[in-house]
């Protein structure tokens, strides 16, 4: 930017910034008629001001600097993104060959649950902590009717909302004259497939420990979502008088065996309740922690995924995926950001060069000779 700090001539010697503020603009008008207006820099529109102008000369360095900063950042992001290991399996079972094809038309209340196993091979080992996601496609969690179909005060443990949920929950508000807890379409359609991961080595399957805590935002788990309060900690008693969501096999107080992961503060539930922005989304399912510094979290090799297939997606042409991913400081694999940075940086650099040429070719004409009058 131009360094053109011209403090305009101030006849009265008011120091910079002595003009009355916005308040004077509304207040001082009435008396003006009769007496001479104040000679303040503000009223005379003579406040000292910095007057930059965007000329090729001043913008050129900015373009080069942006180019020089953005390109390395972009390269950094791109490299980081490429170093991230990500593995994705579609287990919807659309293809007849898929082991899960038999479960394709599963419904909510099928007993016994349909299970299937998919085997896969990791070509590269996953060195750091691995995050296990499930992904859904063509699932409109951001549909307006869906997004608003929840009652945040019920989820926050408010007892009156527990028994009298918000109207927004309709048509998932009551069932057989009993209030549904948690009410609403979001809760009702909670993802309920169970995924288990096994490392297959010489035909022996070793279960990989999947940690189910720490997948939801800390603030959600500890502040926004709370179980209803009352005498004792018996969730069954606290949820007395409510009924389970229609599609759920079990009531909310039986989601998990551990008391600090049960009821409304069940992390799988909390994760599901954060509605996704786009119709294709993934949600964090489990964490796989690196055990020791010597071994990678997931070695390259054969694995098998056991799926308890409860969640029907075929009816709306949806897809289900399981994603394993490592995470860097900038999140998961995302080539977009790196490429975008490199592109923008290069464009800026290129524009800088173009401007430089233009500046040299036309610059003199502009600055000295050709000014009229």
């Amino acid at each position, binding site marked *: 930017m131009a360094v053109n700090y011209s403090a305009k001539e101030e006849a009265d010697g008011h120091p910079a910034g002595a003009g009355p503020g916005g308040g004077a603009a509304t207040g001082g008008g009435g008396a003006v008629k009769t007496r001479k207006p*104040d000679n303040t820099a503000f009223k005379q529109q003579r406040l000292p001001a910095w007057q930059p102008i965007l000329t090729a000369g001043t913008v050129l360095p900015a373009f080069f600097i942006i180019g020089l900063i953005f390109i390395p950042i972009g390269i950094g*992001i791109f490299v980081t993104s490429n170093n991230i290991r990500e593995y994705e399996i579609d287990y919807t079972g659309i293809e007849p060959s898929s082991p899960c094809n038999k479960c394709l038309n599963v419904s909510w209340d099928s007993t016994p649950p349909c299970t299937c196993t998919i085997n896969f091979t990791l070509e590269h080992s996953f060195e750091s902590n691995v995050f296990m996601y499930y992904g859904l496609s063509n699932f409109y969690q951001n549909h307006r009717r869906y997004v608003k*179909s929840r009652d945040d005060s019920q989820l926050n443990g408010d007892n009156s909302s527990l028994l009298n949920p918000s109207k927004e929950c309709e048509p998932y508000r009551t069932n057989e004259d009993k209030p549904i807890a948690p009410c609403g379409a979001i809760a009702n359609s909670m993802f309920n497939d169970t995924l288990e991961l096994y490392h297959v080595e010489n035909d022996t399957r070793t279960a990989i420990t999947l940690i189910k805590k720490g997948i939801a935002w800390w603030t959600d788990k500890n502040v926004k979502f709370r179980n209803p309060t009352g005498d004792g900690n018996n969730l069954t008693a606290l949820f007395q008088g409510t009924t389970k969501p229609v599609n759920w096999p079990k009531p909310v107080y039986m989601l998990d065996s551990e008391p600090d992961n049960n009821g409304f503060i069940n992390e799988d539930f909390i994760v599901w309740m954060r509605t996704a*922005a786009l119709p294709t989304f993934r949600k964090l399912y489990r964490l796989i922690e690196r055990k020791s510094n010597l071994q990678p979290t997931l070695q390259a090799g054969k694995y098998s995924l056991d799926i308890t297939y409860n969640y029907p997606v075929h009816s709306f042409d949806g897809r289900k995926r399981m994603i394993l991913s490592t995470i860097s400081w900038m999140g998961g694999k995302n080539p*977009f950001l790196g490429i975008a940075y490199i592109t923008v940086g290069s464009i800026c650099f290129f524009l800088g060069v173009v401007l430089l040429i233009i500046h040299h070719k036309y610059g003199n004409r502009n600055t000295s000779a050709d*000014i009229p009058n």
Partner: protein
Amino acid sequence: REPPPGTEAYIPQRFPDNRIVSSKYTFWNFIPKNLFEQFRRIANFYFLIIFLVQLIIDTPTSPVTSGLPLLFVITVTAIKQGYEDWLRHKADNAMNQCPVHFIQHGKLVRKQSRKLRVGDIVMVKEDETFPCDLIFLSSSRGDGTCFVTTASLDGESSHKTHYAVQDTKAFHSEQEIDALHATIECEQPQPDLYKFVGRINVYHDRNEPTARPLGSENLLLRGATLKNTEKIFGVAIYTGMETKMALNYQSKSQKRSAVEKSMNVFLIVYLCILISKALINTVLKYVWQSEPFRDEPWYNQKTEPERKRNQFLQAFTDFLAFMVLFNYIIPVSMYVTVEMQKFLGSYFLTWDEEMFDEDTGEGPLVNTSDLNEELGQIEYVFTDKTGTLTENNMEFVECCIEGHVYIPHVICNGIGLGPFKGQVTYYTREELFFRALCLCHTVQVKDDDNVDGLKKSQLSRRSRIYISSSPDEVALVEGIQRLGYTYLCLKDNYMEILNRENNREKFELLEVLSFDSVRRRMSVIVKSSTGDIFLFCKGADSSIFPRVKEGKIDQIRSRVERNAVEGLRTLCVAYKKLTAEEYSNAQKMLQNAKLALQDREKKLAEVYEKIERDFILLGATAVEDRLQEKAADTIEALQKAGIKVWVLTGDKMETAAATCYACKLFRRNTQILELTTKKIEEQSLHDVLFDLSKTVLRHSGSLTRDSLSGLSTDMQDYGLIIDGAALSLIMKPRQDGSSGNYRELFLEICRNCSAVLCCRMAPLQKAQIVKLIKLSKEHPITLAIGDGANDVSMILEAHVGIIGKEGRQAARNSDYAIPKFKHLKKMLLVHGHFYYVRISELVQYFFYKNVCFIFPQFLYQFFCGFSQQPLYDTAYLTLYNISFTSLPILLYSLMEQHVSADTLKREPSLDVAKNALLRWRAFIYWTFLGVFDAVVFFFGAYFLFDNTIVTSNGQMFGNWTFGTLVFTVLVFTVTLKLALDTHYWTWINHFMIWGSLLFYIVFSLLWGGIIWPFLNYQRMYYVFMQMLSSGPAWLGIILLITVSLLPDVLKKVLCRQLWPTATERIQVKIFFCVISF
């Protein structure tokens, strides 16, 4: 007051009481009436509809989002209007309760003004204003006159003389007045301040009533002030809302500025965009939903009532819901901001020290801030001459008697009148001339013991002060005084003068044939002490010469013309001697005409015409009216800025032309084209017009050739002089229907003339000219400036009307008032320019920022199943226009100076003419920039979020984080875009721009930091913090802001480099000057 029995049947009429009600509301009807008034505005009504739609149907955003801003706007406006109305109530009360002296049963009683009734007799003391329209009965002055200023009515601050009714002027005590029995007939109330006809019948004990005519000279108007008269008695005839002042309050038409008009056009465009967006989305929604698994998948089922709803009704509701979702594209706050900008911005005009006039202690006055930006758009300036271009401070220069020139100050030096003294033939004429000047006027004498602070104070060294409605008359009487003849006073209809030998001479004043602008002359009939009856007449040469039968016409005419060329105001003086018989005839005719209730004006004019003829020419006078300081400089600057200056004056051609030369409207090399009565008499109007247009067009043709070959740069200036008669010929529609022809031709000529002088204009013709130009095919913006009542019509006609010097209070007819003509320069070239640049940026920027705001929502519909899911949280939707992005642009639109004020004065022609900054090209550029930015925001965020992880702890973000990211980029981009446009960074700008960004961050932290107890949703809880804790979100925000600002920066730099506008060249020039020093 009951008439005595025996008069014709008196039908009692209901008269209003004397309350003046200027307030619009009462305490009770304020809320409903104000709301009704406000919702009559189309914009408010639109927002009300949106709000109601939100209340009635199930819409994506809560009614709060549009209800709150609307409530804010309505409340602010209501408070403002309520306050103004409260002030009016207070003023009304003060006026209605101010004490008035009544005569009741012969005693003086004090009562409140509002209790005054028609027929009450009122006493008014000096410097009091009249409580209602009064018929002047008697005054403390012996001659039954009083002086009045009507400054608050028509802006003429000079003293006017009013005359008491002849029969009652002798009543001086309360008892005498109370004994009066009379009836008054008068016309129905009408707003014309200068017209009144009525009749008073005075009943003497048992005699037949004597009828007297009443004219406007007997009428004292409410609002006028009594001056130099101890007290008067009057009878109330029009009270309350029927007074002429109250009737004049109404009917001031609203003027709309060009910016406002383009703003409304843009609004319509945006409304179309809005409707088409909603339509597209509705159609797509139903196309998309046609498959049931999309319309109602198992996880997201409808309620029973929703399912059963009629399809078409449902579609219509959906359409409305989309309208509501996108309605922010037309922001409520734009109206508020524009109004605030205009209101607050106008203070800079009144604050301007350079436009403050030390002499009068007055600064500029802004009556309507609606037209601020129009000041920068002026293409034609119509100016009055007398009092506007000139000082209206007359100085007697010389007189010419029978072809011999007398100059007052020569005589003062004791040289004397020289050769003519004693020559009998001349003696009488010369004597008569001086007597004529001493007698033929309406000047009043005020003794100097109680000098008030009027502008006449510079004359206080003399023994007496002359007061008159016409400064010319004062100058003449004073000039004559220096020549040895002093007008002493008018006492009991005798005018006394002191002649050169210090002898008092007495003349009985028989009749005054008062001045009017149509006759352009006035006469008096006096009877000398010897019993001779003289009629003295003075007036414009054109109205005197045709009536002269004797005298040295040629010599005097040549002198008059010579004086006129020098820019002096000339008057001719003539007389005739009347026999007693002639006089009684004349008197009878006058009396009849004055008594007429209908067409009195016309009849009087006919009588005057009969009486004022067969004059003997005595001589002529010349009075100088000096140019206002810097008038020439101002006109030059205006012309340099491409503004065409027209002078419209009632003066004669030569005088006016001389003034025009003096103020550099015409220069030496200006070729003068004349379109005057004289020329038209020689040739036909047709030929003259065609000749002129040929001249002008040939010139313009050669000009283009010259400029092409680059040979000649000094162009031939043309100046046009046209007079009133010629103009009316041009304007007159012709029988064959080709009236347009002449007008077009005339306009064509005018367009090619750099300066036009219209002389001999009647007030209405002035307005006609303004209208003609205003409605010509380019629709230029016009400004009229004048100082007196005769300019009001053109001031009302023009886009912007300005009143100078005289009309302090009459300024209510004007849009702006400035103390001096020279202030016009800064007003138009600096303030007007700034206002225009500021408001055009304001309007464009508002549309831009709302496109940026709403277009991502539109795009989001494609990804959420056209379900009207809002992208942003309710708080963001509500506050975006109210607080996050409102103050920086408001401040910009108050403070921006893209070039300095001094530069603007030096280089006035900086491309803003013809609404340049609000043309379609600029509008489309801004809109596309908005769409581009919106696309960048949305798809940037989309690709950032699409099926990937953006946190370093593996947790996922939801739709609200997505919206918040877009919103953050949005707020930063639009604010930084404004920062890029700001050329004038004061500390306040820094404070506002960075302050509002900081406010956004602080607000978001707070909004997401707490579980808000009274909200039924907590969707924003910790969303903003979580977003900020993510590295990619930061990188994404920075990237997207850069990308959105890049094209605008690039466009600015390239345009400046390759096709710089005049403004940009100046900026660069200044810039380099600063760098190099």
